[in-house]
């Protein structure tokens, strides 16, 4: 995405679900490594990572082990690379017990005239392999790990585990960017799934060329490797470059400077074929097109699963809890809502000194050095809601990601996505996939956020049980002036608390339904994308006009948790009166699209009205002040909790669960 001032942003998300389930530390580490390579292969300097993590319930020791290992793996690789991990997501649901989701997003910055292409062209040009040596690690990784259901044979797949080497990757990064700056490259491609075989054929295909490759020249770390093993090895930290003969020496010199192995392993031809030689003997010859572009197409008949309901639950479907304060505290303590500090404290989120908004807020914002502009980033996934209604769920995920950006004061610009699903050969999974993709497409069209790329992860399924259908969205937004970034903490006593938007809260698929009533059922509300867009325009307007002093959208845990989080962050209380009409628990904890809480000084309320040309509903619901979170309905207190108590529960919960 071009963002002005000669700059472009490269952004992509990738899953490393299966490797992380086998070896959480190395699985997550090599996940970071892979996506970071994707970004610098484009010639962009990686400036941020975000990690989206889904595990089973933390009551199980195995899940704690996975969480601990994955977080440590992300930390070890990202920190060593000097790329700040500035955001992400963390969810715990039983559906992920046997199949955790580890999706990593990397964002890079590049002057757009320096973007590199992953193509090999120009007959007679050289193909150079550089970086780590090639071993047997990860052989069959892509096919075995990413495309099969997990079962008892998991143990036997262990030898395919790859070990990450962030130090070599850091050198690789600097070397590639140096080659870019010196104009030494025709094309550059990382070696990912499928190893040399995939990378070489993709480069040739993109360049409309062919490649003759001599695998006898590939530097090996193990003896006795078969030619096919060399071709499909997924050893990490390797790159393939296409270079004119004139620049060969330059590329070799840069590799020598960074102490990286580099070998000419092939030449570009004009015959459209990938020919593989072992010394003088030709051992493989295939048309590039067959390998890359002519993949078979599956035809599967979608089947709507019986759990997808046609109607929403009635507001009085569940009994009204006797103690709503206790319910609020329970929700604030939920591992899906409480503070994520235990995680992001392990990530270097400040390196590169661009962290204009720190982890823990609506979105992460990094400034662009030498400019007033900044880039805001979020990832969002909500499998539980997509499980109840994949189309509505996917629309909601996109809307919420955009809403988060808008609440930080950023204009949503582009989307990357990672589609995590079960076995697509099954009709029900295929149905979920199709619905989610269409829902996502609808939302992206309406919100004018193009999808620039993404990743698909299937077969997240064990013993016949699939994960929740989980389209994870990574969204990027532009902040025109980093001086105007908005935060969600309440600011000053006496500020008016406003509820913007017309969304109606519902318990279906909410955290409240799961935690307090132990169910996932009903039908989630659909987002009115047109209204959502108007709401976000108003929120951004209120921020840019200097009217809003805080902005926070109503999401997990409903209005009550939204207010509590802003009170905790701001260190100040709030008093709010609920509208008549909804049962208090639904009003407090129900989750709704199209709702944002904004605070503003009394004197500015008129200005807000004036900029609300589109007629977005704006209700004044209370004021900031005191040291308690107070909510009343019909003049009677339904919530009255000290901020300090809420803060303690919210802050310490995750650490306690992990340690306990």
């Amino acid at each position: 995405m071009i963002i002005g001032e000669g700059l472009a942003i490269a952004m992509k998300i990738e899953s490393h679900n299966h490797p992380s389930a086998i070896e959480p530390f190395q699985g997550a580490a090599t996940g970071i490594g892979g996506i970071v390579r994707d970004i610098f292969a484009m010639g962009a300097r990686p400036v941020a990572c975000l990690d989206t993590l889904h595990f089973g319930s933390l009551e199980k020791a195995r899940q704690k082990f996975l969480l601990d290992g994955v977080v440590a793996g992300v930390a070890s690789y990202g920190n060593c690379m000097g790329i700040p991990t500035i955001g992400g997501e963390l969810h715990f649901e039983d559906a992920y017990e046997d199949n955790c989701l580890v999706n990593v997003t990397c964002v890079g910055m590049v002057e757009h005239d320096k973007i590199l292409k992953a193509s090999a062209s120009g007959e007679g040009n050289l193909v150079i392999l550089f970086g780590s040596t090639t071993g047997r690690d990860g052989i069959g990784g892509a096919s075995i790990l990413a495309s099969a259901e997990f079962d008892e044979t998991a143990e036997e797949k262990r030898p395919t585990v790859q070990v990450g080497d962030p130090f070599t990757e850091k050198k690789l990064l600097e070397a590639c960017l140096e080659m870019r700056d010196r104009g030494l490259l025709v094309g550059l491609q990382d070696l990912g799934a499928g190893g040399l075989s995939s990378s070489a054929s993709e480069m040739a295909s993109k360049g409309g060329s062919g490649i003759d490759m001599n695998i006898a020249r590939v530097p090996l770390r193990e003896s006795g490797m078969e030619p096919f093993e060399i071709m499909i090895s997924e050893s990490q930290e390797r790159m393939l470059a296409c270079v004119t003969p004139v620049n060969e020496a330059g590329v070799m010199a840069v590799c020598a400077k960074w102490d990286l192995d580099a070998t000419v392993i092939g030449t570009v031809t004009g015959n459209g074929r990938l020919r593989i030689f072992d010394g003088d003997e030709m051992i493989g010859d295939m048309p590039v097109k067959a390998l890359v572009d002519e993949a078979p197409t599956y035809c599967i008949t979608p089947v709507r699963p019986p759990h997808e309901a046609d109607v929403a639950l009635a507001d009085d479907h569940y009994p009204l809890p006797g103690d709503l304060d206790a319910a609020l505290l329970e929700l604030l303590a939920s591992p899906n809502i409480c503070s994520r500090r235990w995680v992001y404290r392990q990530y270097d989120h400040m390196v590169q000194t661009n962290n204009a908004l720190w982890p823990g807020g609506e979105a992460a914002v990094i400034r662009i050095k030498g400019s007033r502009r900044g880039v805001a980033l979020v990832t969002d996934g909500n499998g539980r809601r997509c499980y109840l209604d994949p189309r509505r769920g996917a629309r909601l995920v996109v809307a919420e990601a955009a809403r988060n950006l808008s609440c930080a004061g950023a204009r949503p610009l582009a989307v990357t996505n990672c589609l995590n699903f079960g076995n697509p050969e099954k009709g029900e999974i295929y149905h979920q996939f199709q619905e989610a993709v269409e829902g996502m497409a609808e939302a992206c069209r309406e919100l004018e956020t193009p999808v620039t790329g993404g990743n698909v992860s299937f077969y997240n399924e064990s013993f016949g049980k699939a994960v929740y259908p989980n389209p994870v969205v990574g969204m990027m937004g532009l902040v025109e002036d980093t001086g105007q970034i908005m935060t969600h903490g309440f600011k000053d006593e006496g500020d008016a608390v406003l509820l913007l938007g017309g969304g109606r809260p519902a318990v279906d698929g909410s955290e409240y339904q799961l935690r307090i009533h132990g169910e996932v059922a009903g039908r989630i509300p659909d987002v009115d994308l047109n209204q959502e867009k108007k709401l976000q325009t108003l929120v951004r307007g209120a921020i840019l006009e200097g009217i809003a002093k805080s902005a926070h959208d109503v999401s997990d845990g409903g209005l009550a948790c939204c207010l509590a989080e802003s009170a905790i962050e701001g260190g100040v209380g709030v008093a709010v009166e609920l509208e008549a009409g909804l049962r208090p628990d639904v009003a407090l904890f129900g989750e709704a699209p199209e709702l944002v809480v904004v605070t503003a000084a009394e004197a500015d309320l008129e200005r807000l009205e004036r900029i609300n040309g589109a007629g977005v509903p704006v209700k004044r619901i209370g004021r900031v002040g005191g040291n308690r979170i107070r909510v009343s309905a019909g003049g009677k207190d339904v919530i009255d909790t000290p901020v300090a108590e809420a803060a303690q529960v919210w802050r310490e919960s995750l650490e306690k669960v992990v340690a306990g």
Partner: protein
Amino acid sequence: MKAKVYITPKQGILDPQGVAIERALPALGFEGVGGVRVGKYIELELPDGEGAGEEMDKMCHKLLANPIIEDYRFELVPD
């Protein structure tokens, strides 16, 4: 009794530490060194008894080593 545990990276698994050390050695004046593999060496005291060996094996497997990427062996030394 005392246990001594030796943990090494599995054959064929990349050992980034070993590689980095090996590459650095010539510059430090140590020529001709190869095959560097870095593992762990753990000492501990455990109660004497029949099942000590089995116990140790379990401990290595569950906690001390990561059997997915590491091999281990141990010695038991009576105090």
